[in-house]
Each structure stands twice: as structure tokens, then as C-alpha cells.
């Protein structure tokens, strides 16, 4: 008897699985064919284009000479010659870093405030929940570059436009992540604070926050990494920082400066990623034991 049930159960499982596998593969094939038609993949274009990529890369590479490598900035072929503008780059890089830092700090504060209103279990009522969720979705949905273009137009060229743009977008995305962390929290400690006569803010501070805080910090650090990269790109539309300089040297074909700046950006992003990854791991790791 048992064997019959098990067998027929297995059979129905296999049937279901087979159906889904076949339909998924068919859909995937249709999708790939359609999209390659639409974007017009043309093999000759691709083949002709690739060497040009190499041309550009070889053009922006610095002409370093091993014998002159450590000479002063007046001697061709030295690192100092390649990076003659280093003080300016560092200042701009610092500006980019600060833009990202400021935007992350402001938006985390705003997101924390909105997240309580946008989480099902902590929102005062469903109307507020619905409205705040939609607003956060809007701010998350618009890319920071669009905000940046808008604010450069309104406020003029400079880092302020970039900061506001990143703050708006980051508030939207952190607000959603925070409120989802709230929703996944255990409501038992919150019940306990409520049952002891605590008010709403006590419930949040003592019942909810200790549970979600490591998650929130980890999200903020992750967002900071993303904002460092984003604030570089924002410079392209005039929102300040190293990106603005990069855009300039690309347009003026100051080839060697392009590679100098890109290398600096890569080094910065990698070191911040590593550092914040280390922090994130430590915070969640220690808190979880």
C-alpha cells in the first residue's frame, strides 16, 4: 500500500517537474531569439569593433620607461610625469568620497524614519503603509543619474546636485530594505515590551531595533560601496567630484590622464569594498554568535 502511494507521488512529482522544465527551456529559447533580433546582433560589426577597443586601451596607457620610472614629473616616462596632476585628483577623489559618505548618512537616517511607516508590522495604519511604500518605490525606481541631471539643471554644476540625487535614490532603496528587515523580525520581544506597558517608541527601540540593527548596518555599508561608484558616474553630468574631471579628460583626449584617473578610482573602490566588506562580516558575525 505504502509503496503504491510513494510511487504515484514520485510519478506526479516527476511529471510536474518535466512540464516546468520543458516550458522554461522553450520560453528561454523564444526570448533569446527575439531579443537578438531586436538588438540586431551583427557579427561583422562586432568583429570590426573589437580591435578598436584595443586601440583605445593602448592609447590611454601611459608611456612608462623603466629607466626613468622614479624620476621627477618633468621627465617623460616617469610615474610622476604620468601623475603630474595627482594633488588635484586626490582632492576630487576626496570630494567624491565625501559626496557618497554624506548621501549615505543622510539617506540612512531618512530611510530609518520611513521604514517604520513602510513595514506592515510597525506601520500605524494601512493607508500610511501603502503611501510611504509607493513613495519609496518612486525614489528607488528613478536612477540617481536622472535625479543628478535634474538637480544640476536646478542648482547648477557642483557636488550638491550629486549629493541630493544619491540621497533621494538611496533613501528609496534603503527604506525598502529596512522595512523588509522589520517585517522579518520576530514580534515576540515586541509583544513583551507592549505587554509591560511600553509605548510605540519603546517597542521599536527595545523590541525591534536590537533584532534588526546588524542587518541595517550591513545594508548601509553595502549602499555606501554602491554610492562611491555612483558618485563617480554622477560627475559625468556635472555633479562634482572625480567623475567630472574624468569626463573632461575623456572629451579632450588627454589619453594618459584617463588611465591615471581610472586606476585611482579602481584602487579607491576596491579598498573601500574590502574595508566595508570586512566591517559587514564582522558586525553580522559577532552579533550572530
Amino acid at each position, binding site marked *: 500500500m505504502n509503496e503504491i502511494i510513494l510511487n504515484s507521488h514520485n510519478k506526479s512529482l516527476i511529471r510536474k517537474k518535466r512540464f516546468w522544465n520543458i516550458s522554461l527551456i522553450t520560453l528561454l529559447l523564444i526570448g533569446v531569439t527575439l531579443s537578438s533580433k531586436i538588438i540586431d546582433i551583427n557579427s561583422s560589426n562586432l568583429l570590426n569593433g573589437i580591435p578598436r577597443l584595443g586601440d583605445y586601451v593602448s592609447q590611454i596607457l601611459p608611456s612608462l620607461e623603466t629607466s626613468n620610472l622614479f624620476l621627477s614629473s618633468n621627465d617623460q616616462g616617469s610615474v610622476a610625469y604620468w601623475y603630474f596632476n595627482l594633488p588635484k585628483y586626490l582632492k576630487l577623489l576626496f570630494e567624491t568620497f565625501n559626496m557618497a559618505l554624506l548621501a549615505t548618512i543622510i539617506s540612512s537616517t531618512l530611510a530609518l524614519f520611513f521604514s517604520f511607516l513602510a513595514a506592515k508590522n510597525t506601520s500605524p495604519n494601512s493607508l500610511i503603509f501603502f503611501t510611504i511604500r509607493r513613495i519609496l518605490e518612486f525614489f528607488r525606481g528613478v536612477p540617481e543619474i536622472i535625479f543628478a541631471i535634474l538637480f544640476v539643471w536646478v542648482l547648477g554644476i557642483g557636488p550638491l546636485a550629486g549629493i541630493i540625487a544619491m540621497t533621494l535614490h538611496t533613501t528609496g532603496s534603503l527604506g525598502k530594505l529596512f522595512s523588509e528587515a522589520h517585517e522579518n523580525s520576530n514580534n*515576540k520581544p515586541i509583544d*513583551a515590551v*507592549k505587554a*509591560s*506597558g*511600553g509605548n510605540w517608541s*519603546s517597542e521599536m527601540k*527595545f523590541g525591534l531595533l*536590537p533584532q534588526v*540593527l546588524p542587518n541595517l548596518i550591513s545594508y548601509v555599508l553595502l549602499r555606501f560601496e554602491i554610492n562611491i561608484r555612483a558618485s563617480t558616474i554622477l560627475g559625468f553630468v556635472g555633479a562634482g567630484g572625480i567623475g567630472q574631471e574624468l569626463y573632461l579628460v575623456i572629451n579632450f583626449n588627454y589619453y594618459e590622464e584617463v588611465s591615471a584617473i581610472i586606476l585611482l578610482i579602481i584602487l579607491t573602490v576596491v579598498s573601500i569594498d574590502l574595508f566595508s566588506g570586512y566591517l559587514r562580516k564582522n558586525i553580522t558575525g559577532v552579533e550572530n554568535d
Partner: protein
Amino acid sequence: MKPLRIKNLKKKFKDTVAINEVNLEIEEGKITGIIGRSGSGKSTLLRMINRLIEPTEGTIEFNDTIITDIKGKALRKWRSECAMIFQQFNLVDRLDVLTNVLIGSLGRNYSFLNLFGYFSKEEKINALRNLSRFELTEKSLQRSGTLSGGQQQRVAIARALMQKPKILLADEPISSLDPKNSKRVMDDMLKINREDGITIICNLHSLEIAKKYCDRLIGLSEGEVVFDGKPNELTADISKKLYDLDDE
């Protein structure tokens, strides 16, 4: 006169009736046990007393206050007078034991500074004194998640005492504990009942423990009171009926 009076209390969850026409008066200073199998409405009844669950119909009165009508500050004051401990202890695992106990003072003595984690020295001494009553002083700076189940429940009792309650509601306080820890927790509840005169209303699974510790037993079945009397009045027949033992 008995201070806590429950009149025609009813609670419906969509189509299921969890509590149906319950009328009860609870004596001061006694331990009242509520018994019955899972789903009989014990937990719902208890949670309506401190309004974690809103009743569909009926009233609960305490002295001259109609508990089922109060709101806002008055409700929080009532909740602080009527402490609760839970089956899963409901401590904040990531906070230390001392802070968990201090949470009990939030309803009685709230200050804006609490939101920054500040508690007055007086309350801290209070909390330590309560912890020492249950021999937990040396655990006070440990994270509460690292304690054993029995210890956590006793921390929860210390937290409840911080509220300086008149009533303690205990919702299945020993269901997730082993026999030794169960005894310890029940003994501690007996202690605060005898020493502080706190009225205790306690949901229990185990008849044996209910008979041993309670002054009065109330049997619930499908949301209705089917037994109300002294532990020695509970006959084998009634307990069979209460737990549906004759089904199979």
C-alpha cells in the same frame, strides 16, 4: 468583592469562536490556573486581559475600571500593572539580561532618555535586586540569548516584577522547559505570589502541576468554561473530558 471580573467575554477570529460567553471573577492574591488542551482558548483569554488581543464582545473590569474601554496612556498603565510572561519567554536575545529586566520599568516610569538606552540608577538597582531574588545576579551582564530556557523564564519573571504588578499573567510559562526547570519556575512564581501578594493567572498544560500549585482551576474547552473549582474537586471524569482523552 473580587477585583477582576470578566463578563460575557467573546472572541471570534473570522469564523472560529475562540472564547464564547466566558464569565469569571478572579480572587486577589491567589494562583488561578487555566487548563485545557491546545486551541481551547486559554491563551486568547489571557491576552484579552492585558488587551494584546481585543475582545469581540463583553467586558473585563478591574476594581472600578472597565479595562476593555481604556486607551492610550491608561491602557499602558493597566498593562504595566498586569504583567505577562510568555511560553517563549519573549526576551530580546541580543540585549543583556539587565536591560531586558529594565524593559519592565518602561510602562511604569517612562522617560524620553530611555530611548537612548539610559535608565536611572534607582531602576538599575531595582532590576539587580529583582535578579538577585532569582539568583541571577551574576548573569546580569550576559546576553540573554546565551541563557538556558529556565534562566530566561526567570529573567522574564524579574522583568515582570519591575512593573510592580498587581496581577501576573503567565501564558504557558513552562511548556518549553524540562521538568527540573519547570519546577524551579513554578516555585519562583509561588514565591512572588506568597511574598508579594501578586495575583497570578496561569495557563497550564500539565494537570499535575496545575493541581500542585494552583488555588483554583478553571477548565476551558472550545472557548467555554467547563470546570471551575478547587484542584481537589477536579475528578478523573472531568479531566478526561477536558483533554478529550476518550476520543480513541
